């Protein structure tokens, strides 16, 4: 785990993991707003023409970004500039296999390391296809963040954890991003199950849109991932979204940071 991840998850409260799509709106300003509002970990989405695991909000963000001509080089420039402005905030790239591997996994991993990216989430490379990206990232010192889902059974979980780094992202609903939310009891049970299997921090996401939901999850998990709710704000306010992003981040961060009844 990189030092930035270790520091972010060593705080006495759960982490707010905030996702926005790169190149959608004024990304640099929005990233600064997330940090200013109290986000602990940043996920930067790499736009893709065919985001199979995403709901309507993030699909639209992908297409808006691509329509503006966002390239992979632009994404790494955004990441590198963020790293210069914010030396301590962990930065994760999240996206799909094809844009990540098209120039070779070694190229991608080296670019991540150069830009100061701490971790990578690739939606459509499960542990069975780890060779496509995992070894290159590990050589480059970049954490491969794996996803666990409600369908990941006990027999599979060790495979998912093998080679995983950074934190474990628990996808709390069998579904796509930004729509329905899981029942809190099922999240509680899942986090307990995952914690028994790994020392990695557990961040929970998919369908988390309000401070109330986030606070409930923060009582049991190490991190709460919010994405589509930010995307909605950017869709509404366009290039002038940063103040709204910062205000919403603060309500989420306050809820999450104050949620733990006892220190972890």
């Amino acid at each position, binding site marked *: 785990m990189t030092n930035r991840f270790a520091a972010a998850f060593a705080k006495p409260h759960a982490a707010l993991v905030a996702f926005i799509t790169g190149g959608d709106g004024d990304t640099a300003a929005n990233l600064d707003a997330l940090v200013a509002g109290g986000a602990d970990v940043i996920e930067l989405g790499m736009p893709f023409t*065919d*985001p199979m695991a995403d709901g309507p909000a993030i699909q639209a963000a992908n297409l808006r970004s691509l329509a503006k001509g966002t390239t992979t080089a632009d994404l790494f420039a955004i990441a590198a500039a963020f790293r210069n402005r914010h030396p301590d905030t962990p930065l994760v790239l999240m996206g799909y296999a*094809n844009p990540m*591997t*098209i120039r070779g996994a070694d190229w991608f991993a080296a670019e991540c390391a150069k830009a100061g990216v701490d971790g990578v989430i690739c939606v459509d490379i499960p542990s069975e296809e780890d060779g*496509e990206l995992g070894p290159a990232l590990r050589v480059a010192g970049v954490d491969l963040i794996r*996803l666990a889902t409600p*369908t*990941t059974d006990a027999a599979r979980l060790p495979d998912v954890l093998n080679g995983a780094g950074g934190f474990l992202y628990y996808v709390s609903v*069998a579904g796509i991003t930004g729509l329905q939310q899981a029942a809190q009891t099922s999240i509680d049970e899942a986090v307990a199950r995952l914690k028994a299997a790994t020392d990695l921090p557990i961040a929970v996401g998919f369908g988390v849109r309000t401070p109330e939901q986030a606070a409930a999850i923060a009582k049991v998990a190490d991190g709460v991932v919010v994405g589509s709710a930010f995307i909605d704000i950017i869709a509404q306010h366009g290039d002038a979204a940063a103040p709204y992003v910062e205000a919403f981040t603060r309500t989420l961060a306050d809820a999450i940071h104050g949620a733990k009844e006892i220190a972890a």
Partner: protein
Amino acid sequence: MTQLPNSLRTGPDERGHFGQFGGRYVAETLMPLILDLERHYRAAQTDPAFKAEFDYLLKHYVGRPSPLWFAERLTEHLGGAKIYLKREDLNHTGAHKINNCIGQILLAKRMGKTKIIAETGAGQHGVATATVAALFGLPCTIFMGAVDVARQQPNVFRMKLLGAEVVAVESGAKTLKDAMNEALRHWVANVHDTFYIIGTVAGPHPYPELVRDFQSVIGEEAKAQILEAEGRLPDMLIAPVGGGSNAIGLFHPFLDDEGVKIVGIEAAGEGLDGKHAASLAGGRPGILHGNKTYLLQDEDGQITEAHSISAGLDYPGIGPEHSWLHEIGRVRYEPVTDAEALASFQKLTKLEGIIPALESAHAIAAAERIAPTLGNDKVIIVNCSGRGDKDIFTVADALGVAL
């Protein structure tokens, strides 16, 4: 260099790869289901009752075997190799698609799944899926790009008559690849009770393998039929390739027959310099829809839009086994343009009284190009993968005829 295996028919490997292609590039939510599907398919493969039910339905419901027709007038017209047509157009629902749908719905039943979903482009796979869903009394949802819904109204109505719900997909370019994205999104959210009937030899392992196996009845029949008609194997096979299910179905039983040349036809649309759907000629390897294969894409790996006059070939990818057969050189893939296919559509109709699907017309066009260069002692089998009734509006429009 790796040595070629003794047989080209043993793929994929246990992880679903054909050489570097294929695999299981899906979200973690789907992975357990894909593994479960594979377990059930392995059990079905060795279950005589499964094969018996599949064969029964192909014979009595689909109407197999489909004839192998000696196209004598076309042969005389071209003045070269003898041309036989494998008449998949005579199957129930009018194309090869039904073979695969029968196999997959039997798997769905075996797995206890109670709902069926599928993607469709022109609507042929959607109609075939809605048909088997009606036959088995299972609720069925078909995902179809909104653009395709608008231009394929007769098939939309057919699917609705068959009891399917047709969802018009508004995301992306609103065509086949977007329909597949949406079907995958729906599946992720409904994995517990839903079976996804993929229409071609693409998607995550084991789909390319099982769709190929269900379609291989085409080549197995053709082999027996040509031996009966000519007393020997053909010199060449020709089939159109979009995703490539009819082609692999014809090709696979012949892959180890060295004397049989095999040609797959990609849709060159307006030409390889313009808009087209020729993934092998104009694309490069990448990852989409659960498998690694040749894709039309830009230098950043963003998927580009395909174009063909034939909606069934209008997809920016190709099945992974075709990518492998291309790279090892066992199958030669050639492009045919919209204009060539349109001309052959009319020629076959007039000479043989057979209206081919525009997909199949691409293979006919290639046969027209190749047959005159071969002696009249040579034999070619062309896959007439579907009938062209569905295409008459498209053809009329292209010819400037108002219906």
